[in-house]
């Protein structure tokens, strides 16, 4: 039996199909345009498939050179025996010290950057209602500091303060301020604003509302962003050594330029282990902050 409802139903079904057909067409056109643009971009940036194919085996070649030639029988032998772990990591003590120095650089820079970022994030969070010119100023300042790569800051600071860790720390701290400030401000914008009304309604200042209504709620996010940044900064601190800003980077630069192949892999492995360590610590720290009273 065909009630009046069934014609309405089939009309809706037809409308649904129409809509889906339209969406498919839009998607197809979009994908086609994207493909053309990608091809143009690849062509302009000389991303030629032929050179990729030609170069690919050479990556493997480099990797096989970098990888150590370990021998099962001599694996645990002393540093004098070729093919042992100790031979591979023959400068482990010096590297660990340099890596430790690099980690210190990263830690201090992260801490400094995060502290400044936190202060700037409150006015940079739209929902907290700082005066518009302050909001614009802090947002733009954060953009400027995070757009300039650390390595550029490092070159400037090496010129100003001389070769050494100080230049590296300042460079990373400055970049961290910009990168974290934006993330912090976004995290603060997501905080629910009822406590904000509570503090403001009882006569608290803007600063007090930031401290009591926003900071406690945003803190777990801020902490995990900062810890993530610490990982990134450990890597940055390693690379920044290339321009004379101290740490394991100088050593890495040396072994790469002198083609000490096996030592490259050894140092990179050490850096990876350090990052893993930070990741595991940060997870624990975050859990504790979420549970604890602030």
């Amino acid at each position: 039996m065909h009630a009046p409802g069934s014609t309405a139903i089939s009309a809706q079904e037809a409308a649904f199909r129409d809509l889906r057909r339209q969406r498919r067409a839009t998607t197809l056109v979009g994908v086609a345009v994207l493909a053309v643009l990608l091809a143009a971009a690849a062509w302009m940036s000389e991303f030629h498939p032929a050179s990729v194919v030609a170069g690919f085996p050479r990556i493997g070649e480099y990797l096989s050179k970098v990888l150590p030639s370990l021998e099962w029988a001599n694996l645990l032998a002393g540093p004098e025996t070729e093919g042992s772990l100790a031979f591979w990591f023959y400068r482990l003590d010096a590297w660990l010290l340099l890596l430790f120095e690099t980690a210190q650089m990263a830690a201090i820079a992260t801490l400094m950057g995060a502290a400044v970022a936190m202060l700037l994030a409150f006015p940079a969070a739209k929902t907290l209602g700082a005066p518009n010119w302050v909001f614009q100023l802090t947002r733009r300042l954060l953009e400027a500091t995070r757009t300039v790569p650390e390595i550029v800051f490092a070159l400037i600071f090496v010129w100003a303060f001389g070769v050494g860790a100080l230049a590296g720390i300042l460079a990373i701290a400055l970049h961290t301020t910009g990168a974290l400030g934006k993330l912090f401000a976004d995290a603060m914008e997501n905080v629910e604003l009822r406590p904000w009304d509570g503090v403001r309604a009882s006569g608290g200042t803007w600063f007090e509302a930031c401290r009591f209504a926003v900071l406690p709620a945003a803190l777990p996010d801020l902490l995990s962003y900062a810890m993530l940044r610490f990982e990134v900064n450990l890597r940055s601190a390693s690379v920044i050594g290339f321009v004379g800003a101290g740490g394991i980077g100088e050593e890495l630069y040396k072994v790469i330029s002198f083609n000490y192949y096996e030592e490259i892999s050894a140092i990179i492995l050490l850096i990876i282990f350090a990052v893993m360590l930070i990741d595991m610590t940060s997870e624990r720290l975050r859990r504790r902050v979420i549970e604890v009273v602030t």
Partner: protein
Amino acid sequence: MLEIEGLSRRFGAKAAVDRVSLRIPAGQMVGVIGRSGAGKSTLLRLVNRLAEPSEGQIRFEGRDVTALRGRALRDWRTECAMIFQQFNLVQRLDVLTNVLIGRLNHRHGFLARLGSLLCQFSPEERAMALAALDRFDLLPTALQRSDTLSGGQQQRVAICRALMQQPRLILADEPIASLDPRNARTVMDALAQVNRDGITVLVNLHHLDTAREYCGRVVAMQQGRVVFDGAPSELSPARITQIYGITEAEFQAEAALAVKASPAFDMPRQTALA
């Protein structure tokens, strides 16, 4: 004496509060009733200046409140404490610190302000906060995080925070709308107790029986305007029907529904990033 004169607040073409005039002598407990969207909340927020009036004036003890800015505005807000439907406590802070927030504007001078930002309160202030908590049987919860408390307890913590301001006036915006009947009673009792201390209480309610039981005066609002102002005994079911065009039972059911539509609690935000 709180005097409201020709107070309006417009959002675009719509007037949330429309030329409201009220005189509230010190020490009264006034219930403001009305259907959802009648402008009760906006009225209270205007008095506390969390919202800015489009026109009209608010005077307290002869002082023009609508013109205040900066420090004077904060002092006024301290004088008229606000209680919210969702308590508006800082969930991740302990109860004691939440209560001490009511004390922030009593700390004068740069060093004291800096101290507040570092959560440094004096033993006297802590004693005052603990005494307030003790008064409402909340002393054992002082060091707990406020999100571990029941709704009724949280609202009473909010009342403690309000009392720490040493206010002359308390504005309560649907203080019991998110609570079960038993907790609602403890919170209303607390407000009545505070009123007996001489603090004027202005409370938004959707439950007419509560207004009749606790308030010496009832103000009914409809579409931003005051449509009834008098003793609760005059507010008979027949009068309600005359004002709102629906029976009291319908009024109650509609108000309850409107309150439930706004979620009582935000889910705790645990996972936040990718």
